[in-house]
């Protein structure tokens, strides 16, 4: 029901990933900004884990064969529907035959597009997310979208069907309400991410410990779904020391011998062997999925207890939005 006219630079089907298989070397993966994906799904009445599209830098052109309710968020893309701007962060009705076009990202790098019902691709090892390296999941054995692909969506739920019908009777085809993921929970200032210290913090010398939080870090071109390498002062250990490989997690900041830190993202390997100086708070990991090469970021140190509070606060905010949306058609 959705025809891919142009695939964009790297557009993949993702959900919240494939947890439970790291013991077999299988990455968790899933939407790089899981919270943004959850909010996109929420706006069209989907479950958190419904499959959606993740796009990077240049988005796809998609032609819808049937009416559908869609929502997108993430970076600032040049998005249009039948030539008119496609508003972000709200539910929009697409008419049969219309084309959604995502051009080039004006700010940020990635965006997520949810379709009411969720994308219908095979469930592989409990997930619909694309795992390119192992050639599995997604819509076609772990491949990004290609021109000519056809995607199916599951039937929308009752809530989405009601919203779709009410938008069909109005001139404006977007809801007046919006849900912006970046407004949920207490926010870090622009250009800043909050972080806690990592398990090998004490291995680093005083200069490194100070520099991590005092310096500006520049995102480099070495960035993909596995992680982002930053450029800045060299972070050195007290003395050379080898680590025995151990599990890593999304947001961990590991430092290879070059002294230049790498922030790990959801498609990270399951184990890593570099000392981990810090960990980005879960609520701020999404910011690394929008950093372009050359953009700068600062780390703000916080106690672990505060990182938990931020997560809980954001979940509570999301819960309130969820209840508010449910009432809209109730």
């Amino acid at each position, binding site marked *: 029901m959705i025809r891919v006219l142009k695939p964009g630079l790297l557009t993949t089907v993702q959900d919240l990933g494939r947890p439970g298989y790291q*013991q*077999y*070397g299988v990455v968790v993966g899933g939407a790089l900004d899981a919270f943004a994906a959850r909010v996109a799904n929420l706006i069209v009445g989907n479950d958190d884990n419904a499959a959606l599209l993740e796009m990077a830098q240049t988005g796809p052109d998609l032609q819808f064969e049937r009416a559908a309710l869609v929502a997108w968020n993430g970076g600032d893309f040049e998005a249009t529907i039948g030539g008119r701007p496609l508003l972000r962060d709200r539910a929009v009705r697409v008419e049969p035959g219309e084309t959604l076009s995502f051009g080039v990202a004006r700010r940020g790098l990635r965006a997520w597009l949810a379709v009411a019902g969720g994308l219908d691709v095979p469930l592989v090892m409990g997930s619909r997310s694309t795992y390119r*390296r192992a050639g599995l999941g997604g819509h076609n054995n772990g491949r990004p979208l290609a021109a000519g692909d056809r995607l199916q969506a599951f039937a929308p739920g009752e809530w989405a069907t009601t919203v779709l019908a009410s938008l069909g009777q109005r001139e404006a085809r977007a809801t007046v309400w919006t849900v912006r993921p970046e407004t949920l929970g207490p926010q870090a200032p622009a250009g800043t991410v909050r972080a*806690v210290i990592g398990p090998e913090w004490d291995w680093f010398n005083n200069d490194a410990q100070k520099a991590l939080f005092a310096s500006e870090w520049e995102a480099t071109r070495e960035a993909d779904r596995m992680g982002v390498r930053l450029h800045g002062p060299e972070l050195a250990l007290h003395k050379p020391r080898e680590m025995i*490989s151990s599990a890593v997690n999304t947001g961990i900041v590991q430092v290879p011998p070059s002294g230049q830190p790498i922030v790990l993202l959801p498609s990270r390997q399951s184990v890593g062997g570099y000392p981990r100086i810090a960990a980005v708070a*879960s609520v701020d990991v999404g910011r690394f999925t929008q950093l372009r090469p050359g953009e700068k970021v600062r780390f703000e140190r916080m106690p*672990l207890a505060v990182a938990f*509070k931020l997560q809980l606060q954001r979940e509570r905010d999301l819960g309130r939005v969820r209840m508010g949306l449910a009432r809209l058609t109730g």
Partner: protein
Amino acid sequence: MQITPLGDSALTLTLGDSINESTHRQVQAAWRSLSAEPLPGVSEVTPAYTTVTVFFDTARVVAAGAPEDEVVEWLTARVRERLKNPPKSAKAGKPRTVEIPVCYGGEYGPDLGRVAAQARLFPEEVVKRHSAAKYLVHLIGFAPGFPYLGGLPKELITPRHAKPRMAVPPGTVAIGGEQTGIYPQVTPGGWNLIGCTSLKLFRPDLNPPVLLQAGDEVRFKAITPEEFKRLEEEAR
């Protein structure tokens, strides 16, 4: 045993400070205790050489009763409790022994000569010693189904290539430093390639999706190129 946070979504249990069989057994026991019946809010438990990592969802841990200010303390106490009283289902079975047929040398193992030169042995002797040893799967990682094997005979230790190959074929058996392993997929790799097996190490259609699991014993069996081709045909 130390339990330390790994960011705000995981805890790492450290059970030793060097790679050896006794630490491996402790890691396996702890991993089984924690994964046989998952603790509330825990999404996944992963073993490595000397550590076990418990991944959790903060909101679910709090919903299960953890005070908001003491998420780590609460979960740490549950982990310690669990390790003291492991569930019956966490009992270890007998370790499995998996035999892996390998065609050594030639196009299947272009670095066999390099390993032999390093060890000052004939290539045939390298094959004999590599396939006579008994290996332990310490962990699966790096790529889906990739086993990190302990037990490489000391004389076969060979440094990694300075420049990794761009594409190592699937099934390749390789030596990197003191470690030996098998590449399940085509990936870049800097280890010394000494042979190849036709067995599939990652099988996403099966459960578990891997040929080898942490705790398995592995033995390599040398086969001829003809046998390799026959096995490869059969596997199709």
